[in-house]
C-alpha cells in the first residue's frame, strides 16, 4: 500500500493502476516539493500585490471525491514555518484503532470506508441543535490552512498541513447556553465499516472532550483536509478534531456527535487507563507517562540516526493557551 510519488515511471504508473484500480495515482497528490513551491509562489504573490491570494470562501465546500482539492482555502498566521512531514508519512503512520491496532492498519483497512453521506448530530446545552448533513454543517464556516505540530502521547511528532474550520466558530454558531461547560465529541461506531471495533481495545465509541474555554480558543480546528486536499479516510475523514497543544489522542476522528454538556464528558483513553491518560492531556515535557519519558520526541521522517528533539510545554503553543491553565495544577491534572 505504500507508494512514493515520483519513483514510478509513467508506464509503471499506468500498469500499476490497471492492476490496482483503487490505488490513488501518485500524480493526484501534490508532491511535497510542488506543494512547498506553490506556497512560496503564493507568498511571493502576496508580497507583490496581494491579489493572488484566493479570497476567503463565503462557505466551506468539501468535495466528496477522494483527495479532491479543497476550494477557497485561506492561509493562517497560526501556521508554523516548520517543514511539514510528507503526505506519505502523514497518511501511512496512523493511530486509528477503529481500523486496527497497528500504525499501518488504518491505511489498508479504511480503504473502502465511506465518509459520505455523513450526518453530524449536535445536542445538549446549545441554542441550535439537531442532525446536520455534513455539507450543511460546513457551510457557515471558512476553510483555513493550519500547519500544526502534532505530538503523539507515544513520544513521536509530525508537522501536518491541515485544512479545516475554526472550532471556536463552530461552537459559537451553535450558541451554547451558559450551562455548557464542556464540548464532547464521538467517532462513528460502525462495525460494518470499521473492523477494529470488533476488538475490545477501547470502550467504543471513541469519545473525547474539551472545556468550553479550550474549544473557543482560536487554535483548535475541525480538519477536513491535508495538503490542500480532502482528508484521507485513515486520518479521520470526513471531519476530525485537531488540538495542537494536546497529545494526539485528543484529536477524535470521523466525528458524528458534538454534545454541549454541563459536566465533564467521559473520554476514551482516560476511561481505559486513568493513571496514564488524563482528561486535559496537554503536551507537557515535565509530566512523564508512567512507562516512558515525555521530555523528548522523535520527529517522524528523520534518518535512523536523527536525534530526538526536546518536547516543548503545550507543544510550543504556550503563548496562545497557557492562560487557560493558570489556576490548574498541571502535574495533577495531566
Amino acid at each position, binding site marked *: 500500500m505504500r507508494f512514493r510519488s515520483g519513483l514510478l515511471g509513467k508506464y509503471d504508473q499506468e500498469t500499476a493502476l490497471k492492476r490496482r484500480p483503487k490505488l490513488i495515482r501518485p500524480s493526484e497528490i501534490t508532491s511535497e516539493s510542488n506543494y512547498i513551491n506553490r506556497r512560496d509562489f503564493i507568498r511571493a504573490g502576496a508580497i507583490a500585490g496581494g491579489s493572488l491570494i484566493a479570497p476567503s470562501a463565503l462557505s466551506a465546500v468539501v468535495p466528496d471525491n477522494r483527495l479532491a482539492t479543497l476550494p477557497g482555502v485561506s492561509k493562517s498566521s497560526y501556521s508554523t514555518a516548520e517543514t511539514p512531514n510528507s503526505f506519505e508519512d502523514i497518511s501511512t503512520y496512523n493511530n486509528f484503532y477503529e481500523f486496527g491496532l497497528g500504525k499501518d492498519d488504518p491505511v489498508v483497512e479504511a480503504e473502502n470506508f465511506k465518509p459520505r453521506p455523513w450526518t453530524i448530530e449536535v445536542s445538549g446545552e446549545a441554542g441550535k441543535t439537531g442532525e446536520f448533513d455534513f455539507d450543511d454543517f460546513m457551510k457557515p464556516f471558512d476553510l483555513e490552512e493550519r500547519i500544526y505540530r502534532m505530538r503523539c502521547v507515544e513520544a513521536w511528532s509530525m508537522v501536518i498541513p491541515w485544512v479545516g474550520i475554526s472550532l471556536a466558530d463552530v461552537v459559537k454558531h451553535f450558541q451554547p447556553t451558559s450551562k455548557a461547560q464542556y464540548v464532547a465529541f464521538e467517532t462513528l461506531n460502525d462495525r460494518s465499516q470499521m473492523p477494529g471495533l470488533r476488538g475490545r481495545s477501547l470502550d467504543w465509541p471513541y469519545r473525547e472532550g474539551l472545556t468550553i474555554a479550550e474549544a473557543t480558543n482560536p487554535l483548535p480546528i475541525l480538519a477536513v483536509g491535508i495538503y490542500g486536499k480532502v482528508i484521507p479516510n485513515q486520518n479521520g475523514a470526513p471531519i476530525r478534531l485537531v488540538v495542537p497543544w494536546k497529545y494526539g489522542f485528543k484529536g477524535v476522528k470521523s466525528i458524528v456527535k458534538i454534545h454541549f454538556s454541563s459536566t465533564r464528558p467521559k473520554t476514551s483513553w482516560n476511561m*481505559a487507563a486513568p493513571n496514564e491518560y488524563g482528561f486535559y492531556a496537554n503536551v507537557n515535557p515535565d509530566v512523564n507517562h508512567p512507562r516512558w519519558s515525555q521530555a523528548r520526541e522523535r520527529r517522524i521522517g528523520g534518518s535512523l*540516526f536523527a536525534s530526538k528533539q526536546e518536547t516543548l510545554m503545550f507543544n510550543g503553543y504556550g503563548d496562545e493557551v497557557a492562560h487557560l491553565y493558570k489556576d490548574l495544577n498541571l502535574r495533577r491534572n495531566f
Partner: protein
Amino acid sequence: MNTLQKTRFIGKPIVFLACLIPALLLVGDILDLTGSLSANPVEDILDRFGNWALRFIMITLAVTPLRRLTGWNWLSRFRRMLGLFTFFYAAMHFLTWLVLDRELRLADISEDLIERPFITLGFTAVVWLTALALTSFTAVRRQMGRNWQTLHYSVYAIAVLGVWHYWWQVKKDVSEPIIYAAILTVLLGIRLLSYFRRS
C-alpha cells in the same frame, strides 16, 4: 560421515543461517530491499529484535520437550546455538534501545532503568542472558561443574522476565503478550509435570 559430523558440517550451518534470516530481513527492510519500515523505523527495529528474542527463547525452551516427545535426541545439539541466538536478538534489542532510542544519553538511560519497571525487567533479563552466553563455552562449562547447571536453569526466570517486560510495555492490546505467556506456561508446565512425576 557419521552423525556427529553431519550435525557439525551440515545441520549446524543450516540452522545458523536459518536463525539469521530475521536479522537479514530486517536489514533488507531498512535498506528498502525486502520490504520497508514504517515512518518510525527506530520503533520498528526495536520491536522486531525484541519479538525475535522472545521467539528464540521459546524455541530454545521447546527443544527438550520436543526431544522427549519425539525421541530425536540430536535436537539437543542445536540447543546452545538457539540459546545464543536468543542472546543475539535480545542484545540487538537492548543496543537499539541504548543507541537509537536513548541516544546514549546517560541521564535518560538511568531514568528509564530506575523509574520504569518494565525497562528494569528487560535490562535484568539482558544482563542475565549475557551471563549465560559468556558461560556457554564447553571449557567454561567443564570448569564450573555443577554450578553451571544451576546457573543455566535460570533461563526459565529470564523467559518469564522477557514476557513480563513485553506485557507491561504494550499500550493497550495485550493479545500478543498473552500468546507468549501461554506458550511459556505450556513449556514450563511440561517441565513441572515431569519433575513431579520423577519425584
